[in-house]
């Protein structure tokens, strides 16, 4: 039977096949997830309408499929004929006297890469040498299969290995015999011993297609880098007061994440500097000043950064913003962020503190104009009122589109954010 790509809501017209969860020939149960598709930035699993066997895939991973197109076909009568492990599946490997357990079950997937050669007892292929001699060969980088043994029955002795190492082509050739009395060239007394061989790890380079979120990020960042002339402004912010306030809130049962304060401070500062809460319309060569302040928050998701949006952050308090952040973080992890929460941002903040670092610049997310980043709080020695004190300080960087914003707005915005974070009472009063 044919299974057509269903409308999964949101007025969707098409989606990208991210990953097939059941291969062609694989058995499925009704309601079992068979494929992951990506719509805008949310990932949706499509489930099988029947119990049976997947006869074909309608599109390959990475393809765009339209609603109504054939997504997959199933056979529903062949389930009983599916492969089952046979008692015979446990036969020994032919060349080693093996535990019956060595064999994989009959339904194991076909190998994707050839197995490495095991250290099996292939007669004649083994160099005749003791374990300690083999260790010496490893240390000296000598390939024992190229060494002729001088011991009984052709056994390779330590001296055979040393001789092979000394005669290795990498050893420096002695200088041509010089006339008696000529001083020897100032070479080191002993020939340079060959360095131990370093085994490269098994495997090969892998090509990983850029799909889904990763592809979207790649395209957006290239556009940002190539079309937006970036300007950065860097500041250090004393977080003592914020940390005190967070501790007090926590005592009252409100665990408000640091990011919530940053979102709130940015939202309020954006009202002072509307040129940063804007979009650039390249085609019209116009700056669109946005009347709402919707702050996108960069969240580290399994497939890459995604940026859910806190709407109207300038009229929400930090506790509310904190709760929304928690929800969005959980939904991001589960990849269940509703599409509407991924749209409509007018500015972006990014708290990379948990990752470490100090100053970090970010790329503006077109068509937005600015992105504000903050790093981890670290104890720093700072002067206060003529005294040396230790304070938790974080580095904060605003990156902005220099086509439409100048130092006046950019630095002014950062100073405003810094003041609010250093005297957070302002964050609570406004709005």
């Amino acid at each position, binding site marked *: 039977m044919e299974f057509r790509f269903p409308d999964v809501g949101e007025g969707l017209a098409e989606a990208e096949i991210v990953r097939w969860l059941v291969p062609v020939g694989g058995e499925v149960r009704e309601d079992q997830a068979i494929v992951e598709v990506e719509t805008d930035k949310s990932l949706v699993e499509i489930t099988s309408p029947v119990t049976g066997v997947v006869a074909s895939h309608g599109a390959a991973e990475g393809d765009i499929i339209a609603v109504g197109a054939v997504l997959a076909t199933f056979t529903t009568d062949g389930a009983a004929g599916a492969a089952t492990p046979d*008692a015979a599946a446990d036969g020994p490997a032919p060349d080693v006297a093996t535990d019956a357990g*060595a064999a994989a079950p009959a339904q194991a997937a076909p190998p994707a890469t050839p197995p490495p050669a095991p250290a099996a007892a292939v007669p004649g292929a083994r160099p*005749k040498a003791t374990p300690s001699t083999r260790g010496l060969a490893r240390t000296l980088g000598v390939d024992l299969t190229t060494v002729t043994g001088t011991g009984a029955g052709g056994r390779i002795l330590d001296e055979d290995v040393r001789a092979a190492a000394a005669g290795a082509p990498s050893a420096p050739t002695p200088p041509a015999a010089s006339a008696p009395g000529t001083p020897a060239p100032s070479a080191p007394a002993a020939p340079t011993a060959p360095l131990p061989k370093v085994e490269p790890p098994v*495997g090969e380079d892998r090509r990983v297609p850029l799909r889904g979120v990763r592809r979207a990020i790649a395209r957006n960042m290239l556009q940002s880098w190539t079309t937006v002339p970036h300007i950065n402004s860097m500041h250090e912010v004393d977080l003592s007061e914020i940390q005190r306030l967070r501790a007090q809130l926590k005592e009252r049962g409100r665990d408000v994440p640091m990011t919530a304060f940053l979102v709130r401070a940015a939202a309020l500062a954006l009202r002072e500097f509307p040129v940063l809460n804007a979009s650039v319309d390249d085609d019209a060569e116009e700056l669109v000043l946005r009347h709402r302040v919707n702050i996108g928050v960069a969240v580290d998701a399994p497939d890459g950064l995604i940026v859910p949006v806190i709407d109207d952050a300038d009229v929400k308090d930090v506790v509310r913003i904190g709760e929304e952040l928690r929800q969005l973080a959980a939904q991001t992890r589960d990849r269940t962020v509703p599409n509407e929460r991924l749209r409509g941002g007018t500015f972006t903040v990014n708290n990379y503190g948990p990752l470490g670092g100090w100053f970090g610049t970010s790329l503006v997310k077109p068509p937005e104009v600015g992105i504000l980043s903050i790093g981890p709080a670290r104890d720093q020695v700072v002067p206060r009122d003529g005294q040396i004190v230790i304070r938790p300080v974080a580095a904060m960087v605003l990156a902005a589109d220099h086509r439409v914003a100048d130092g006046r707005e950019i630095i002014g915005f950062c100073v405003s954010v810094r003041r609010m974070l250093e005297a957070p009472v302002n964050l609570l009063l406004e709005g």
Partner: protein
Amino acid sequence: MVVGEIARPVDLLVIGGGPGGYTAAARAAELGREVVLVEADRLGGVCLNVGCIPSKALITLADLWERSRAAADRGLPVAEGGVDLAAARTFKDGVVDDLVAGVGTLLKDVEVVQGVARLLDDRRVSVESGDQVSHFQFDACILATGSRPVVIPGLEPDGVRVVDSTGALDLAEVPGDLVVVGGGYIGLELGTAYAKLGSRVTIVEALDAIGGGFDADLVKVVSGRLAALGVEVLTGARAAGMEDGGLRVEHGDDTRVLPADVVLVAVGRVPNVEELQLENAGIVLADGRIPVDGRGHTSSRRIWAIGDLVAGPALAHKAATEGRVAAECIAGLDAAVDAHVPMIAFTDPEMASVGVTEAAAKEAGLAPVVGRARFVVSGRARTLGATDGMVKVVADAAGTVIGVQIVGPEASDLISAAAIVVENALHVADVVGTVHPHPTLGESLHEAATAALRRLERAGAAGGGASRA
């Protein structure tokens, strides 16, 4: 903002506390690494808890019982009654508990974390324990999660009527009729043990030979003993499913139902890879196993894999060797998995093999020289009342010993001496020139080497070493 917790940095993370994992962890700690070992169940793994060790307790008990009853002509009063399986279990559990505690001692410099580990990417794992999740960021990781018995659809173990090798060690009573599906070494060991304890045993093997790939000369001796114990062996037969009366078996065109109080399924093992989420580290299986190089290194720079997860037989001593090598390589030493892995089976009599067999050597065109010594002429074997079996020494044309196979009393112990000979590429003359004490079973290795040396001499190809004998 970033989701997720701060991962705790650690030098080496070992996933799995079986013989491979605990050996690797202990060796790495000895070499000064900070090691965390994650174990989902109990230290010691399958081998110690539900495998080699407890099965040997059962096999030894059955053997003692059967031999004591067969020793009347040697002066031993005939034992009456039957064995006490409950007492046997108490003894077995005590042994296992002591050995598990011993593993804990071995790991005194290793932090053991209880939980299920999953790879998040190529340098981080999450460890789930109950509803707690913690994260580690490793410089190196050794995967050592082992394997579990294959389940045949329709013959899923229920612990009562259908059991796997684990369940077979915990039966409440000796079954009247026992059908063993799988004639590999596990099936033969446990089938023999229960036959000695009084079960009527049938072994059902899908291939046309039993013995799990051991040399045919060895298996022939074991088959003879199985017949003497009244064990029926059906080869080329397929277990088709349970019925009220017993196990339905397809044997050629014939279908019959074998009466069975208990069916033991022992048809192989599958690696435990599902929980690890290898795909997060970009590791792709080959033939159901993790591909590694000659040191245990996977395709991922920081990740190593050992034991039943990688190619080769599922054996504790193989896993332990690979664990030691991986730990040493991670610590910057030169090491490689390049040694022969001896195989043993606690059948009756025992089978053991190291290096190549006569058949494999012939197949490789090596013109092997083989020396045999039968235990029937061994004074020690005769006084033990265990004269079935022989030692086979396989040498190449130059006289280097490339394989030894033993079937007979204590073959599992005798093979270690043979392994030293093979691993060090000694000449048969080196074995002949080594004095073996009398009267011992080990003399048979000397005898077999002597027989091989005589053949070499007759062939005029003894090489330089022969004259030293």
